[in-house]
């Protein structure tokens, strides 16, 4: 929902090729300190628990997500938490704990699907469009900017209507929800990757490749792509948290996954809404807390990744450049590639055209 995306934009300095860094691992962790390490560790722990719960849901959950009885004994509706039902039962008589656990499974499936499809579509589209340029590029920028400005939940609803049109199967439901969310994300990847491609493609090493006779395909995927992909892990992580929120929003409005085919936290919250007037808290609080916990975990990791993967911005014992200072909201309201409305930082009068506030690496300043 939020459009806070951490990117480094125009002032991209190609990293020295030797600075290759393994993805989440010890090296990553070692490059942090203090508060930041705490944030990263907390986030990673939450995600690990989330993934384990999701994968092992059938083992961990005491009951099925859609059953209201076990061994012929009916659970009863809206029962408060007890030894048999730690989180109580819902208005439909299902075990809340089991639904929360199975909900993790749904959420994980949707996140993985949504983020990977958006990556597969958005990144190549952005690189090619940015590299080739021309009319198609301009048209794509216009369309993605328009979509980007639109409330993401509404867009997801429209797509959900288009895909399901009322019918859905268990797998199709998850797939449909993921696709609806994908439509929201593709413009984001497109924008980030395309803008970086535009600035990278004029670098000398690209010219050099061109002169040696490399084909465009090779230049795009071997030379340009690796240099525009630094911000993708961050974006993907933050998108994962957004995916959970959008999925929950869809479910809450009754446009997510069919309730009988999978447990979904947003749907459960919707059902819990009418319980609140009777003071029944357990049906809503637990699925809600699950959402908050997972989103918090993923966000913490995303923010830390941003700090770490942009080595220029890393915190070092309280140095002058704490990463979050360079964090910024993805650049702007819709602006059209070149001739469009200018943002403050593109202004020729701007003393700092690369825009510190636009999240550019702080190298220059540090080196001065």
């Amino acid at each position: 929902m939020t459009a806070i995306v951490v990117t480094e934009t125009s002032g991209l300095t190609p990293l020295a090729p030797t600075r290759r860094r393994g993805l989440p691992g010890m090296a990553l962790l070692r490059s942090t300190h203090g508060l930041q390490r705490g944030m990263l560790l907390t986030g990673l722990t939450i995600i690990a628990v989330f993934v384990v719960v999701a994968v092992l849901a059938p083992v961990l959950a005491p009951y099925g997500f859609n059953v209201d009885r076990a061994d012929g004994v009916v659970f009863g509706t809206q029962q408060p938490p007890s030894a048999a039902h730690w989180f109580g039962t819902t208005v439909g008589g299902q075990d809340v704990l089991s639904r929360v656990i199975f909900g993790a499974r749904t959420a994980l499936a949707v996140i993985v699907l949504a983020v990977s499809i958006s990556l597969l579509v958005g990144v190549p589209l952005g690189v090619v469009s940015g590299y080739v340029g021309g009319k198609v590029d301009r048209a794509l920028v216009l369309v993605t900017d328009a979509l980007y400005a639109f409330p993401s939940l509404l867009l997801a609803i429209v797509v959900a209507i288009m895909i399901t049109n009322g019918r859905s199967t268990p797998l199709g439901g998850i797939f449909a929800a993921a696709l609806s969310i994908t439509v929201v994300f593709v413009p984001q990847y497109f924008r980030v990757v395309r803008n970086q491609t535009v600035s990278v493609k004029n670098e000398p090493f690209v010219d050099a490749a061109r002169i040696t006779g490399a084909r465009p395909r090779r230049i795009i995927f071997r030379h340009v792509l690796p240099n525009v992909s630094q911000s993708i892990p961050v974006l993907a992580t933050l998108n994962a948290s957004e995916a959970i929120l959008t999925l929950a929003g869809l479910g809450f409005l009754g446009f997510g996954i069919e309730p009988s085919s999978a447990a979904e936290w947003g749907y459960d919250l919707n059902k819990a809404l009418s319980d609140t007037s009777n003071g029944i808290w357990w049906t809503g609080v637990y699925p809600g807390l699950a959402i908050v916990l997972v989103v918090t975990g993923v966000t913490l990791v995303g923010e830390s990744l941003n700090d770490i993967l942009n080595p220029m911005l890393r915190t070092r014992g309280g140095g002058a450049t704490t990463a979050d200072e360079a964090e910024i909201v993805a650049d702007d309201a819709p602006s059209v590639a070149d001739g469009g409305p200018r943002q403050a930082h593109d202004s020729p009068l701007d003393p700092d055209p690369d825009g510190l506030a636009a999240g550019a690496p702080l190298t220059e300043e540090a080196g001065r």
Partner: protein
Amino acid sequence: MAVTVVPPAPPAPPATDVARARAPRGPLVRSPLVRYLLVRLALIVPTVLILVTVVFFFMRVIGDPITASQGGRLSADQLAERKAAAGFDRPILQQYAEYLGGLVRGDFGTALTDRREISEVLVTNGAATLELTMWALLVAFAIGLPLGRLAARYRDRLPDVSIRLFAVLVYAAPVFFVGLLLKLLFSATLGWLPASGRASASVEIALTNVTPKTNIMIVDAILYGDPGYILNVLEHAILPALALGLLTAGVFIRLIRINLLETMRTDYVTAARARGVSERVVVRKHAFRNAMVPVVTVMGMQIAMMLGGAILTETTFEWQGLGYVLSRYLLARDFVAVQGIVTAIAVVVAFSSFLIDVVNALVDPRVRY
């Protein structure tokens, strides 16, 4: 709904050398500001057109709205008859052209289920959404500004850390969950505040007779002139405004903090400090205003986010705004109504982002050139 903006004719800004070199010199459009605004205004058209087109074709590509809403209930013959009557059996491009024509005249169609004119829905329920977003914005500013400033001032110390954690939590919690918690606490448990609606039933009925009726409850209540009614309306607004406002406050806190820290590093702030200006005054007088400039831009983007949040908030609190009717129409599978409302929101979003750019251009002279 339609927002027309007549930009005030600005005094020609003093041209610096750079500006003189850069500014294009059309015979008609001399002022760079006017030129900028015109270009920006012209850009609304393709944006709106794209959104309308996307929404139209996405929602029609599968089938016609009559089959979607009445599918199981009517026989094939009846369906065909209804479709023909509504014109849904004609070529899709013809329908599209007609839909666009209707939009230009302000005709958004008629809901299939309750036969309400969508444009009438937009006016009455749109006012409710406007009211909710205004309250929420108020909350967001009241919470976001001071906390963001505090976090920047005590950077990396306890206030900063706890405020940032608060911002993350507020962002991570869906509005409807926050709403649910608020309802549980303040209305079900403590019984201090009403759980849903925009006013008590009796008040709402009384307020229907107010002239001129604005559909903005608080204005209607003030026009009616009964303090008890005003209080009642305010009581109903508190929880929804908090739920939606907290979400936005989280974004504001982060933004203001970052931009303030950014500004605090500039030379003129160092200069102020060197002159012995106290830290409090440096933050308040010197840094804060400049730090707000980029914040304005992002606030424009927040409007889209708030409208998305408003849909969920309204459903949570049965606040009879656009989001509330939208979710009702969604469940009834009335896609003509859904399409109309979504389209209208697209127009609002496009215009508000234009407005923000206008404000930005007026505030920050650098944008214009």
